[in-house]
């Protein structure tokens, strides 16, 4: 075991953000027999959500230092995208956050449409909202399931969540052809028009979703062990969260009212009536509850979208299907993905390939505060805190 680790992709020992009050880090004299125990968790570890690695220095069971190490899943996403056409990057965006390909698709299409000056027909806008919110349901239900697994349940909540997620994913498959790698959005609209039967099935499913949420909450939200394990654990205050650039449910759990669906009102979110739940403590429990409440709001948005979905084309008839050559310029398109602000920055020099292609991955940026959240808590808590941040390594490492 190498205490210093590789410097690639790791944080400097002193976090730039105001650290929470924690014990002073003593030097590790002898990793095995010294005062502190250094435990390397990952990249092969059951609960680091993929190939993430945490090098935790423990005093007893308490974490005095934690170094996140990542990059084990680096696939050169951005460089690949700079060497292929604009369209060919679309299926690669599925593989960023493989739990929510449809919202990532949208973010990329949004950026490219900005660059191309491409309008989007109304029906496609609604379809995008429908699919993005269903993706949010998928992501959040997965997340709470995994969170409980990190908390030590023997898979029961996870499998309940997967049962419901599977129903939504089946719908994705029957619409887009693939369960997770949907590759659905195009510049100027969507790829396939859902049939009325599909819409009806989706509407019914979404209608029944709150029943699952109620059961789920009854099972574990009031559980005493759950409360004791999550309340007051991994606190992030609003200032810290803003300084670190957190977005999404993690930010809102700290009480910062910042939801791009409200702030930017991109797409047709301006027409939707929904609320943004906010937490007051910024701890793991808040992060969990914000997601549950967001799922309930998503169900509301979906009901409105199904009601208002207009007839019409799903693709702008004038839109080019391939061989896009945007004028020289740049565009940044961002949407409120399930994990936070997912943005794509494209710079065009007029060639068929983007000159620069940059992803703003919410998972990675939300992860920056991990050490500050974990300091002073126990090893068992660090796993839970990591789970509550909600990362997907495909997006962290890209």
């Amino acid at each position, binding site marked *: 075991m190498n205490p210093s680790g590789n410097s690639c992709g790791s944080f400097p020992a002193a976090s730039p953000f105001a650290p929470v009050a924690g014990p002073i880090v003593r030097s590790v004299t002898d990793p095995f027999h010294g005062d502190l125990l250094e435990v390397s968790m990952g990249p092969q570890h059951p609960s680091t959500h993929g190939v993430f690695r945490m090098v935790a220095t423990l005093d007893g069971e308490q974490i005095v230092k934690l170094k996140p190490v990542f990059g084990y899943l680096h696939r050169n996403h951005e460089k690949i995208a700079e060497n292929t056409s604009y369209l060919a990057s679309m299926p690669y965006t599925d593989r960023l956050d493989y739990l929510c390909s449809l919202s990532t698709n949208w973010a990329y299409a949004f950026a490219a449409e900005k660059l191309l000056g491409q309008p989007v027909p109304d029906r496609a806008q609604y379809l995008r909202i429908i699919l993005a919110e269903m993706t949010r349901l998928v992501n959040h239900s997965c997340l709470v399931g995994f969170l409980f697994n990190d908390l030590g349940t023997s*898979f029961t909540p996870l499998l309940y969540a997967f049962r419901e997620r599977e129903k939504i994913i089946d719908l994705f498959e029957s619409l887009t052809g693939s369960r997770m790698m949907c590759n659905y959005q195009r510049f100027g609209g969507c790829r396939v028009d859902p049939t009325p039967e599909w819409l009806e099935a989706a509407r019914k499913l979404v209608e029944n979703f709150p029943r699952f949420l109620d059961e789920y909450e009854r099972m574990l939200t009031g559980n005493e062990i759950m*409360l004791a394990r999550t309340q007051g654990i991994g606190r992030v205050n609003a200032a810290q969260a803003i300084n670190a650039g957190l977005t999404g449910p993690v930010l809102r759990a700290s009480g910062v*009212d910042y939801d791009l669906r409200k702030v930017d009102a991109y797409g047709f979110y301006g027409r939707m009536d929904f609320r943004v739940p906010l937490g007051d403590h910024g701890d793991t429990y808040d992060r969990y509850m914000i997601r549950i409440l967001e799922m309930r709001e998503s169900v509301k948005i979906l009901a409105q979208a199904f009601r208002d979905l207009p007839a019409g084309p799903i693709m702008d008839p004038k839109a080019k299907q391939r061989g896009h050559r945007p004028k020289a310029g740049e565009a940044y398109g961002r949407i409120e993905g399930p994990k936070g602000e997912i943005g794509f920055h494209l710079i065009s020099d007029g060639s068929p390939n983007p000159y620069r292609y940059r992803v703003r991955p919410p998972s990675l940026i939300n992860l920056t505060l991990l050490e500050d959240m974990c300091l002073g808590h126990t090893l068992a808590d660090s796993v839970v805190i990591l789970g509550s941040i909600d990362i997907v390594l495909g997006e962290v490492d890209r």
Partner: protein
Amino acid sequence: MSAVLASEPFLERAPLELRDAVVQLLPAPAQWLGHHLITILAVVLGFSLFFAFTTVAERKLLGRLQNRLGPNRAGVPKFSILPFHLRHKLFGLSQPFADAIKALTKEDIVPAAADKLLHFLAPVVVVAFSLMTFAVLPVGRHLVPVELDAALLYFFAAGCASELALFMAGWSSRNKYSLLAAMRALAQLISYELPLILSVVPIVLVTGTLSTVAIVQSQGVWSFGLLPHWFVFTPWGFAGFIIFLIATLAETNRSPFDLPEAESELVAGHLTEYSGFKYALFFMAEYFGMTALSGLGVTLFLGGWQAPAPFLEFIPSYLWFMGKLVGMLVFFIWIRGTLLRLRIDQLTRLSWQFLVPLALLNVGNAAFWSLTAHWSGPLNLVRWAIALALVVTPFLLLGRTLSAGFAPRTYRYAS
């Protein structure tokens, strides 16, 4: 013994008759040895089979709890000697045997830095000691492997060595996860041995004996010929039973107290560096421990082999015992399928700040109960009321302090 036995119904004495018949076949000097060997063999084989089917039952039950089917594939193996092949999958009931073959044929990997001797000894010690506990469990009216005067003491003495073995396993693996798990196992043992024993003390107090046989016999009374006098149906017995259940879960490292093998942070805890049959032995010992402690719970609180009503006594006593045992195990599996894991500091706090005071008060409660045994009529109601109050009030008060600061929250929405 045979005089008492002869008056019993056939089913009740069938196991003993069978043993005696086998012993008669042996030459006279070997009969003593044969008698004991058969008993040992019966206990080991019986509970090993029970263990095998507990694992498959656990997986199937957990599967159903989680809306899955559970293992249902392993059926009749295809033997070429048979003229036909039974295609039935037997509902997956042969899964444990398939697992055993797999575990036996797996490579046994010992880390290079491990303490080889302790690494090897740990699974042996843990299985040996967990099997020893079965010796004093009265499985049926006449089925007690060893009748000991200090049976309860023996039970706890034999059981306490298992955590020592966990420590050996964790320390000898030379793995940080294992070492942390070993520390947790020690902390857990120290914390939960006390409430476990304290929860049993009231029974010793009331019955005035440490013998499991005598304790079961003292529960074989029925009010109005219907209501069994099991200790769980008294206020102090109920409280003791709950404390016993919680402490049992902790002692056997079952969810929600499975910290030594917390897979979400410690991979597999003390078992991280074990593979193949050694791993299977640990697994076996864990289930033996759970079965033995459940059996003790049945014996002490649920009337042992006694039937719940006199008219049900035609069913042999050992079936009643097994039925109750299965009920306890199903409850443990249900708990495992529902609850999440405590943290180590919460685990110890739960024991020292909640279970130990409750168990101590419960001893006082039992003392009150046995002192007022002669109260009758309306006084009996007073007795029940006081005993109930002695259970409920401390539970509420201690529960409030234990869960202080933790409550579900309400959330605001952005305007």
